[in-house]
């Protein structure tokens, strides 16, 4: 079991190191997230729609779309010089490879969200105050779920033509449940509702994470065998 996590961390570490040295993916995904926020601000008719009413949806659409953009690069990295084949030749568990890629993607998407969230607060004048802990919890739980499915799909779509289009087509239906729940929970948190009101959404998000992470760990090995 120790070996399993050691491999996973090694794979995740490799991806994070590549990203830290080149920074191209992170900068692009971040710029995308910020631009999405900016466009939303101008797409809103200030006279008819208050910023508060729109804020949770804007936040989650931004997170969801930049998540897709971030995931798209996850296996594109491995396509160059057939790096994926080399990775698959290593005598290690395929599930551990998946976990490694998953953790790296998670770190990447979290990094984008960590920058987008404060900008969202500034751009939309949200009074996040006491809700910050709850919003972070909801973000972590929702992201953990869709990144699991996204990692699997990114591994598949990278082998197709039009990979950048294929990933959102497959992944967006899977994002619907966690994003819907996250929007509901975020809206309640931002309007200062009692914590008890969002307990149900939190539990659903946790269930989604558990089910899909398990399913992805189980199916990834059969995805990759040649």
């Amino acid at each position, binding site marked *: 079991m120790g070996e399993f996590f050691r491999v996973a961390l090694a794979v995740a570490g490799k991806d994070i190191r590549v990203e830290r040295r080149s920074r191209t993916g992170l900068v692009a995904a971040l710029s995308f997230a910020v631009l999405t926020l900016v466009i939303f601000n101008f797409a809103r008719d200030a006279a008819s729609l208050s910023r508060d009413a729109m804020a949770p949806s804007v936040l989650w659409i931004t997170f969801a779309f930049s998540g897709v953009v971030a995931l798209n690069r996850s296996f594109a990295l491995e396509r160059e010089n057939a790096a994926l084949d080399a990775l698959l030749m290593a005598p290690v568990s395929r599930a551990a490879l998946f976990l490694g890629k998953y953790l790296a993607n998670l770190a990447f998407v979290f990094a984008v969200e960590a920058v987008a969230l404060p900008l969202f607060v500034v751009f939309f004048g949200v009074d996040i105050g006491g809700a910050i802990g709850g919003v972070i919890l909801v973000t972590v739980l929702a992201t953990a779920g869709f990144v699991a499915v996204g990692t699997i799909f990114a591994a598949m779509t990278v082998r197709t033509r039009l990979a950048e289009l294929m990933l959102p087509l*497959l992944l967006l*239906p*899977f994002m*619907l*449940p966690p994003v819907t729940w996250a929007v509901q929970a975020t809206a309640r948190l931002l309007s200062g509702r009692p914590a008890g009101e969002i307990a149900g959404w939190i539990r*659903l998000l946790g269930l989604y994470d558990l089910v899909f992470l398990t399913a992805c760990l189980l*199916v990834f090995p059969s995805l990759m065998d040649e």
Partner: protein
Amino acid sequence: MPELLAGRRAASRGLFLIATGLAGLAGIYVLALRFTPVERFQGLPQKIFYVHVPAAWSALLAFSLVGIASALYLWLRDPRLDLFAESTASAGLVFSVVMLTTGPLWGKPVWNTWWTWDARLTFTLILFFLFLGYRALRSALVDPLERARFSAVVGILGLILVPFVHLTVYLFRTLHPQPIVLKPSAPSLPWEMLRTLLASVGVFTVLLVGFVMTRYGLGRMGVGEWGHGAGEGRDHGS
């Protein structure tokens, strides 16, 4: 060429079932319009019920079959299971289009809106997009073994997603009628209407089986995705 013969046999049986189903569908129209009472509040638009609900049934049945066949494929690696899943997904896509077009046609006169973000409507729309994504992924992959594995994973994850979408949409209010046939108490539908509905469900099931068998047979004969260049996938496992 036993493969070709088996394919031809399945395809011709499928075509026979489609012909039977289409004749049955004509029968359903007569039965629904002539021998089934007009619903008191909705009037004639309610007749679309006898097409809409069975189409939804066939789409859901197809979706479950794709998921099951996908799981079995990853386990047994029999290319016929992959072919079956692909055939069923294509047929399911057709039925979900029928469901998504008859729904608004019924909704407009009765609810006074073409579309509403109601539980079951959203659910069926997601179902449609899952079928569409499955088809799109298949058409974007070249290697038959890779295509089979990848689409099986989508089929399985799609089946796992269904209860979550169901849960999501049920937490919101709904315009759509509550179940009137499949519910714990006795069906609250007059016998004449129930009879027409059940007959129509039968006809749509025959059509689904017919479409799947025809496509499956054509696949065995090497038409479409299983045509030239797919040979290396064929001998694997069988």
